[in-house]
């Protein structure tokens, strides 16, 4: 019996240390107890917030990424894509394909907001080297949170304003309150960021100048759409137009950003010249173009989503630029500088028709497939259904954001068509993953145009128009063959509107520009403009016809449907946007023969 008692003693001892026996710690993750402790942790937390931003233009979220949605909903473009890609065409038509069409966008943006909230809640925890280091973290987090809320508010109108990391079921916050938070965050960013010119090493990170430019964009949208004069601040007070102009001028004069001499060298098609490709792109060669690239030469790109060579199908497709793939055409049999993709966002012929021919930006932005300047051969098969079910085909494609190929020997010496990134960055050749163009969200030209718009002066407009002849860098670029456009003599809103349309075409701003120029009480006029897309000749899957079905409803305020799952999970605390209630929201479906 003694033996047994001895053994049970052992057992009891075991029980005594049971707690430590069961205590385990995560070995590949930190916890909130040992993270947010150092400036390095804070930088990693910031990186995670940037990643949500870059993850938005990928997967199912890509369709409704504000940049993309703004393009598809605008008067410039159609949904396009393949027969089965309903979402882009539904977005173009202001319809839904399901009850949770925008859930991915909603999720990603709130993930980004959560990560910023977490950062700002823990901002005082680490010991910083100096105040400016802390100010930079605070500035970046505030800038990102402002941008996330601005994008959400432009897309969905009023949304719940979540400013804490603890789970909360919140109703919609009035727009004035959300914009006050956005303005306050941006003001914080402007004040906290160090006031130094941009640095190449920090490309991709927000800085003071980005905050100033975004503030102007927010101001213009809020005061335009909501038809007010000032932008409110949290705790009272507001931001006036004069303050915004001051910030824009600070940005224009002190940031170090500037217009580049050749507009067309901003875009990767300019890389497909004889130096880079055995079968160069005719337009590039004829115009002597050479891409500025993304190594910091381009001083016009102020804030961009950066892409890299590390994309992986299963985990991180968003490290590559999926939007470029999305906007590439579906002509797989065509081999040339224009690479293949999913065929979304075909260009409305009316944009081409309206655009003066003497503007180099017209052919610098649009590829008309049968235009002699392009050198696109017949294998493009315009309008042939064999063209892999291209929908909304017009024969006009934008060329700022799309796959660009060069003809070059690969690593085994075989000449082949591949994306320029294979040569420039040693990317793995894979047309779905090798687009790496950065998406420029704020371009210096926009700063100049916003300045013109806010001040009612022509300076900004004319600088943009005349970029080929003024302020040429020393030495001047090799070839600049085009004449500069004539200056305009007096400012008018119409002139400004036209200039923005030409300069910033296909850069994700058009629809929001339209919303703010019309304002919430004049959306019936916007309806007329947008529904003029109906009737434009398009070819669907080889069958010629006309565009039908664009249905802009002023009752929606120009905003989109909140994911219904979110409405249901909130148990009615969150209310659906007008016009998008279940049963009311118009559904986009496959085209019927009738």
């Amino acid at each position, binding site marked *: 019996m003694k033996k*047994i008692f001895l*053994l049970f003693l*052992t*057992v009891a001892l075991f*029980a005594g240390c049971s707690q430590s*026996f*069961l*205590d*385990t710690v*995560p*070995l*590949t*993750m*930190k*916890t*909130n107890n040992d*993270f947010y402790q150092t400036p390095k942790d804070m930088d990693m*937390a910031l990186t*995670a*917030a940037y*990643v949500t931003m870059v993850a938005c233009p990928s997967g199912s979220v890509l369709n409704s990424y504000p940049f993309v949605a703004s393009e598809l909903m605008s008067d410039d473009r159609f949904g396009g894509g393949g*027969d*089965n890609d*309903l979402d882009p065409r539904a977005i173009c038509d202001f319809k839904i394909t399901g009850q949770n069409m925008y*859930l991915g966008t909603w*999720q990603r943006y709130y993930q980004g*907001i*959560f990560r910023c909230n*977490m950062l700002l809640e823990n901002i005082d925890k680490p010991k910083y080297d100096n105040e400016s280091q802390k100010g930079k973290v605070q500035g970046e987090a505030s800038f990102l949170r402002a941008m996330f809320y601005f994008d959400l508010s432009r897309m969905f109108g009023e949304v*719940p304003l979540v400013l804490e990391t603890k*789970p909360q079921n919140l109703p919609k916050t009035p727009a004035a309150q959300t914009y006050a938070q956005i303005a306050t965050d941006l003001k914080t960013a402007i004040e906290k960021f160090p006031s130094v010119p941009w640095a190449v*090493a*920090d490309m*991709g990170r927000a800085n003071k100048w980005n905050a100033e430019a975004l503030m102007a964009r927010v101001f213009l949208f809020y005061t335009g759409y909501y038809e007010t004069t000032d932008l409110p601040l949290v705790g009272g007070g507001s931001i006036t137009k004069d303050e915004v102009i001051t910030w824009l001028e600070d940005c224009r004069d002190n940031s170090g950003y500037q217009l580049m001499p050749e507009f067309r060298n901003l875009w990767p098609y300019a890389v497909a010249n004889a130096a880079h490709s055995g079968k160069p792109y005719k337009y590039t060669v004829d115009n002597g173009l050479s891409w500025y690239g993304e*190594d*910091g030469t381009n001083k016009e790109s102020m804030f961009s989503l950066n*892409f*890299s060579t*590390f994309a992986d199908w299963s985990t*991180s497709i968003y*490290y590559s630029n999926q939007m470029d793939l999305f906007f590439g055409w579906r002509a797989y049999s065509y081999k040339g500088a224009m690479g*293949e993709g999913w065929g979304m966002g075909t260009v409305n012929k009316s944009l081409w028709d309206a655009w003066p021919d003497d503007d180099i930006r017209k052919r610098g932005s649009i590829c008309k497939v049968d235009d002699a300047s392009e050198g696109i051969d017949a294998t493009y098969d315009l309008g042939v*259904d064999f063209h892999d*079910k291209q929908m909304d085909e017009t024969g006009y494609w934008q060329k700022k954001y799309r796959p660009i190929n060069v003809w070059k020997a690969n*690593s*085994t010496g075989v000449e082949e068509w591949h994306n320029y990134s294979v040569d420039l960055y*040693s990317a*793995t050749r894979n047309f779905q993953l090798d687009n790496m163009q950065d998406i420029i969200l704020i371009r210096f030209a926009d700063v100049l145009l916003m300045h013109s718009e806010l001040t009612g002066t022509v300076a900004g407009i004319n600088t943009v128009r005349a970029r080929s002849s003024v302020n040429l860098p020393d030495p001047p670029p090799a070839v600049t063959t085009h004449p500069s456009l004539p200056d305009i003599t007096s400012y008018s809103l119409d002139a400004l509107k036209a200039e923005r349309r030409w300069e910033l075409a296909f850069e994700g701003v058009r629809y929001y520009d339209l919303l703010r120029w019309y304002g919430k009480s004049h959306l019936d006029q916007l309806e007329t403009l947008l529904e003029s897309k109906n009737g434009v000749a398009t070819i669907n*899957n*080889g*069958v010629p016809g006309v565009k039908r079905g664009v249905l802009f409803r002023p009752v929606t305020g120009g905003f989109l449907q909140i994911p219904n*799952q979110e409405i*249901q*999970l909130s148990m009615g605390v969150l209310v659906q946007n007008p016009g998008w209630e*279940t*049963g009311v929201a118009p*559904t986009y479906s*496959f085209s*019927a*023969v009738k």
Partner: protein
Amino acid sequence: MLKRSVLFVLLLLANLSLIAQQSVTGVIRDAGGQPMSGVTVIVQGTSVGTLTGVDGKYSLTVPAGGTTLQFSFIGFTPQDVAISGRSVVDVRLAEAVTGLDEVVVIGYGTLKKKLVTGATVQVKGEDIQKLSTMSAMTALQGQTPGLSIIKNTGQPGDGFNVNIRGMGTIGNSQPLYVIDGVPSGNIDNISPADIESIDVLKDAASSAIYGSRGGNGVILVTTKRGVRPASGVKASITYDGSYGWQNLYKKLPMMKALDYANIIDEARVNSGQPRMDFASLVPDWDKIVSGEWTGTDWLDELSYKNAPVENNALNISGGSEAGTYSMGISHSNQTGIFGNPVESHFERFTFRLNSEYTLLRDKSNSFDILKAGQTLRYMNSNSHGVGTGNQYWNDVFSCMVASPFLPMYAVDNTDVAFPYHYAIPWKLNDSNPIGNMVYNRGLNESLNHNLNGSFFIDIQPIRNLIFKSSFGYSMSAGSWRSYRPVYTLSATDFQSIDKVSHNMNFGYSWSWENTLTYNFKLGTDHSFTALLGQSAERNGLGESVGGSNSASLFADFQHAYLQNTPVVDVNLTSVTSSPWGIGGILSYFGRLSYSFREKYMATAILRADASSNFMKGNRWGYFPSVSAGWVISEENFFQNMKNTVNFLKLRASWGQNGNEAINAFQYLSTISFANVNYFYGPDKSIVSTGGYANILPNPDVTWETTDQINVGLDARFLNNKLSAEFDVYSRTTFDWLLRAPALASYGTGAPFVNGGDVSNKGIELALTYSNNAGDLNYSASWNISYNHNEVTRIANAEGIIRGATGVLGEGTEELYRAQVGFPIGYFRGYKTLGVFQTEAEVGAYKNSTGSVIQPTAVAGDLIFQDTNDDGVINDLDKVMIGDPNPDFIMGLNLSVSYKGFDLSLASNGAFGQQIARSSRRWADSPQNNYTTDIFDRWHGEGSSNKLPRLTYGSSINWQYVSDIFIENADYMKISNITLGYDLKKLIKAIPLAQARFFASVQNLHTFTKYSGMDPEIGINNGYDSWAKGIDIGFYPSARTVMLGVSLKF
């Protein structure tokens, strides 16, 4: 009470020691007078025993105090014979008809079947081995009611989807496997030849002793133990070998080239597009038109004819006074029926050694005071397979949809795709599916090693008081290696860089258990067994490392090792290593069983478990159970009925179990660094890593609890020839562990919450009839079980857990979900009411307020049900269109033996379930091939009221998830038929105890109306683990013809 028992035992000992030892011999024969070898002879109340030899003879020394000999042999009624001073005891054993005295395993002990109060079923190892299957699970199919075993796929080495009494959770719903007392992952790494018995614990009271892990039922596996052989015989040796040829049982009928062309043109005309100019797009079009060539049948190209399967097992057991041993070695090798030319393949070696030693006997030599023993199993397997995942990672599917126009092989080596044929102009980005399979999924190999062992000691200081301490160790190691070469198959399917991947992992777990058991009687009528125990387990002590790189120096699979890729490239080289995630469970448990004259029985169990998966304070779970049995047939009032009902027992039980299988650290706000990289600055190859809080912590997360009531009846009729077991149960899972969708505006991942309830209710019935007529023995057993599964609570506002989208085709909506009021994983979609035959019918299809419901439809389109009568077809009209959970599962087993011949048949089936089947990607791929089912499409008034017209591209007809994709999948499979003959019966001179030769057919026939290749589908195709019944290109089970031999020495 202890004092009294000790006194009692002492008295007993004193009494026994007065009697001297004696020697006994004898011959055991069956009812027909044939000597029986291998019969176990044991002196009752001791562990002294032996086996009869080839001649049926035995001889043993009966220790002092031994008064009775027990004779037992599987399939025969054991007999107890009093020695009564004789030195020769000859016995005739009768074939067993009741099985009531068989001993079953109940977890930390054994129990006579007659005394069992819960719902348990035992399957003998012999019955499993007889079926010559690769895995014991295949042999278990249809053997026991309430146990659903569905093979994931027919790919060699693929596992099983096992549910006891329905799905109780969308988390891990597989039962707990306990092998020789040690909890293990599954039993796929055991050779069926090593199994002594499998016991299935179905109700909560039976599995309560496994507490936190018993919620989905428990499967106890006992591997073979040694028995002391008869004197003069050193060991018992058996060899079993079989060799078989496997073939596809049923092939999907794919469209031939000319039919395919016609169907494509029909779809195009329907969509307003011109007919195809096939002659310019398809090579050898003239031969297709003339009928000289019918196109490539890709499923034929994928198939192997007469794929071999082979099993060999050698078992040796024996022993002496000092101890016993049993060892076995086996080898199995199976080639798959799909995967040509890379063949899916599985090969397994196992080795087993179990032994037990008596170290100390008590003075009277009547019981062992100290015993020690060990178990050891080693398994080594290598396998490789082809893709069986979703539509983008499934080689069967790729071959179903590939165009018959594309030739398999290149004409000559000027083709860049040589030896395969490059894509043809018909569709320049549709590549050769076989080539794609070979390059992307074909060149790989998995190696696995498993070592499981335990060491135990039994201390019996006084008779019937046994202390057992057991230490178990389980190790597993594996590696996976693959090579993807540089290749070109089409304009979009090529690789310009090769890839070598190699991963390895190694880990182990250990457990230590201590139990104290005491059997005692109070008076002569009250028998008790008390068990107290404690266990500690640590798992997840392991690591994985892996890497991939490019530019192999050898460019083949054989040399696909990372050392052969010396160039490190930031874009192409990747390395990783990670720990497995350590966990632990600490437990205390007790059981008290009581029996009054084996007439009234009761058992109470309490187990307490603590798991490291939960936060301090929520770790401990307590799992009680009670059960009782009443052998009514023992009652006096029953005696006049006993001629009709030979035995009748009523059982009832209630108990609770748990499930702790969730991700660890749900109670912490963890910071993840996975896939959050960003790229600042001018260099695209410089990475900055991010970190973010990836879940909202839930400090309250704890056990999932299963509560089950079971009432059962066991009965014997017709002189014990007919036995019946009947059970009714109600099983409810409370605090279901799930990751319920939370508001996206929370901004990060929802943690596991104890957020739902699931109910499973069912009835089980098993009938067995055995009889003989002279030398003819025959038996039939039939079992059937019914289960109803329903989710009764999900703790979010929607009450829904959504399933995957895009399952049945590119861009299709959600197919399955878990939702309150419905079975787990039910299919949701539109109900169709036929096909519009005319335009007039379209106009006439109105809701109650008179609005036309499908105004844009044309003749030939599907009529969708406007469930809510609102005049439009949308999400709100979706209903349950199918349920992948069967209502009934059934097994039927027949066997006949006559002299040396034996014939058996095993069959199993499932009824009432549906399968969602899609053979194409539809919308984005109008050039996918069709199955010949499409001949039944609508193509003119009256031609079909089921399948709609074809279109070239997307249409809601094929794009909406509707009941046209749902099929009833009732089936009954004749899974095995075996005919054997024991040559020993004919030629007595053979120096063997048995020389049985047999031939069998596995998967002989499937009775079903299901149109796919195989209605038994266990795989979830990479979708949620709880998704079931989805057929999007399935690797079916083969039909196998097998020859084999069983030899006993």
